[in-house]
């Protein structure tokens, strides 16, 4: 059975947006720093509202931040 995986570019986008720290991003989107760490490591897939808030902080579309792919 194929496994659906959500990858993201949050870490890269943080560094491209003025070396933003995880705490800064967490404060801007209203979550804890641990949640940002989990999202970056792929341990946690954020809810749709949180994904939109993260994309909004970077001034990017949701597809530019999160990529959905299928792998075996």
């Amino acid at each position, binding site marked *: 059975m194929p496994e659906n995986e*959500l990858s993201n570019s949050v870490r890269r986008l943080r560094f491209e947006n003025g070396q933003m720290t995880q*705490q800064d991003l*967490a*404060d801007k989107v*209203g*979550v*804890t*720093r*641990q*949640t940002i760490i*989990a999202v970056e490591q792929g*341990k*946690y*897939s*954020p*809810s*749709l509202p*949180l994904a939109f808030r993260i994309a909004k902080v970077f001034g990017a579309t949701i597809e530019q931040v999160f990529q959905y792919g299928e792998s075996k």
Partner: protein
Amino acid sequence: MNRTQKEAMCSLIFFTVTLVFVVLILAARLIFKKDVVYITYFMLATIAITNVLGLLYVLRKQSPREVITDERDKLIKLKALFASFVSVMISLAMMLVILSIILGIGGSIGVWLLTLILFVISIAASMVYSAAVLILYLFGKDNAGERT
């Protein structure tokens, strides 16, 4: 470490200490028939101090803008609550089986013993809840998107 993790860690320590003290006091009174009034006071004071210190640690903010709880915390707490509920069910079932084996089908136990069993199970359930929160934070792989 965020507030949910701190809460879980402190309550795990608190409930472990409480359970150990309860077992020690009961062992002293029921098995060794010793009067342990002063030791009981000492243990109660230790529990109270542990509780106050834990509360101070939990309430101290890392930064003024620190978020108290978020969607991942809620998801983890929900899973931990389920784990705790399952542990209560298993503990009660095991307790009933053990008691029926020891006492027989028509056997009976004192009300105080039943209260004690429920008290210990509730402490154990709280420990399972706290441990589950900590484990899910360390090793959990959640997928909120697939949940809905």
